[in-house]
């Protein structure tokens, strides 16, 4: 647990201040644009919110606003990739993966085009805008597509590394980012790798496999459980597809319970991926924390997280219940 203490200490450092993953994306994209001329960015009238506006300001000749037309956004990005460009197409998660799902399927994933779909405003932490804007099914929609890689970064530091990594990776990738500020959870010297989970600690009683903003909640839950004498571990499963099967199986074999935690529907996301793997390879008790097959609603994000059962306390409760069985 030494690394955890070190990490808390270093949050004093300005580099490790809470930051929204979309803000990290805006910065990473700008850096990438400086390094790589083939990077082009497309947005659908939300560049101020998705933070692609930073790139647009620096490289106007490589930025295309497609207007409020997500289907066309995806097709245009696909076409650009066919000329050797490296397109990043961004809008809100619900519009990118929902409105343009079939365009992503037919044009991007079927042909395995080198297009990066980086969506912001995922999950219920979109908050006050309400259910119409809260994507809670985007991971499910992207995970089901062949050839697609799905990544959900946990914090700003990981987001920046993810953007670098997917630029070097040839193939379609979906990256899920958020609107709200999130604390830094990535340890000092952390190195993201596509398809590799980060193990904070392996628990003997239970292991919590989390993604996105739920990694932070899982780490808090781990500390709370420790006080109650329960040895729980945490894994940041930032790549949801391809899933790090070994990490999941090891965690299941090391403990009596797996708890998944995601700011997404419990149907089709990380929890489903983990349950699918375990049920076929190493049947083990699984509890899934997520939005329980319902739509979100308007409200402040911290209150919504409580309302939908997505807090550290909810994870603690799930672990305790699961271990009682």
């Amino acid at each position: 647990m030494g690394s955890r203490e070190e990490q808390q200490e270093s949050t004093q450092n300005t580099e490790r201040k809470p930051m929204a993953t979309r803000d990290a994306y805006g910065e990473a994209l700008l850096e990438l644009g400086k390094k790589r001329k083939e990077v082009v960015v497309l947005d659908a009238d939300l560049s101020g919110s998705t933070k692609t506006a930073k790139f647009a300001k620096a490289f106007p000749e490589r930025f295309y606003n497609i207007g409020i037309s997500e289907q066309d956004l995806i097709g245009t990005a696909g076409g650009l990739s066919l000329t050797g460009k490296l397109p990043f197409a961004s809008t809100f998660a619900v519009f990118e993966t929902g409105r343009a799902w079939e365009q992503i399927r037919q044009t991007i994933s079927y042909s395995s085009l080198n297009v990066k779909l980086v969506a912001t405003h995922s999950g219920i932490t979109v908050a006050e805008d309400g259910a119409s804007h809260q994507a809670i099914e985007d991971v499910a929609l992207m995970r089901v597509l062949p050839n697609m890689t799905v990544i959900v970064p946990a914090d700003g530091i990981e987001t920046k590394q993810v953007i670098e990594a997917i630029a070097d990776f040839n193939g379609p990738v979906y990256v899920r980012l958020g609107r709200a500020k999130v604390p830094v959870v990535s340890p000092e010297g952390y190195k993201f790798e596509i398809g590799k989970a980060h193990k904070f600690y392996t628990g003997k009683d239970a292991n919590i496999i989390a993604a996105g903003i739920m990694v932070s909640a899982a780490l808090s839950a781990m500390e709370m459980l420790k006080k109650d004498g329960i040895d729980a571990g945490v894994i940041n499963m930032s790549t949801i597809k391809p899933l790090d099967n070994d990490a999941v199986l090891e965690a299941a074999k090391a403990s009596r319970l797996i708890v998944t935690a995601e700011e997404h529907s419990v149907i089709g996301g990380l929890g489903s991926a983990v349950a699918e793997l375990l049920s076929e390879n190493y049947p083990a008790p699984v509890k899934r924390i997520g939005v329980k097959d319902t739509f979100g609603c308007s409200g402040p994000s911290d209150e919504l997280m409580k309302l939908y059962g997505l807090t550290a306390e909810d994870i603690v409760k799930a672990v305790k219940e699961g271990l009682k069985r």
Partner: protein
Amino acid sequence: MSQVSTSKDIAFLKGQAAVVRIEILKMLAQAGSGHTGGSLSAADIATALYFSKMRHNPKDPAWKERDRFILSKGHAAPLLYTVLALSGYFDRALLKTLRKIGSPLQGHPCSKLLPGVEISTGSLGQGLSIANGIALGLKMDNTNSRVYCMLGDGETQEGQVWEAAMTAAHYRLDNLCAIIDNNGLQIDGPCCDVMGLEPIPEKWKSFGWHVIDINGHEMEAILKALNEAEQIKGKPTMIVARTVKGKGVSAFEGKVQYHGVVPTQEELKKALEELGENGK
């Protein structure tokens, strides 16, 4: 590429269009399923593009300077496969494998499997957006390559087509020339009964496109329109090609039921005779 087509060129292209139709009918009869009507209606335009207008190299399908052709109406795959095979992208014998297990000739074009197919299509309404993206990329690279995109008329009922129509005009994509194969029929009946499309030229003009309205079976008119499109600066061009579904085979012409039906052996025999193939 010469801007003036000689009568010899025209005669060659007309003959080539007949060969294209013959191959389409043979491969569809062999496959036992597929889209006959819309492959035949667009045959003259595709022939003009592949055997006269477009700069492309079948020996190097990824040649950077090539002109691109996007078949947005992917169900006319037999037409695309035929012009690609006749151009030399792959062995003509492969045409017999259409729609069979393991064949690169899928029911709708798949770019991962077949050289010369720029992008997989089949779900309607998506090709023009892709063509726009290619046109933008080519402009960034300052190449003179042009992009051709063929749409079905019924296909323009898809909303994405009009999103793409706006994008092409907004970004002044004068290296893009789209063609509507306006055969007037779709699966459920005449387009005007299913969901009215007219006035087609006026719609595209109002979206900021240069529009050329032609008979899509007159080879001279097709070449003239393609040449005119190349001269237009600052805006994309739409060629509204008025065509006949099933063109070239009198039994199929203008008949809505031949959208997704293939010829029987007897129909094939008659059709081949009509197209001038004498037991070849």
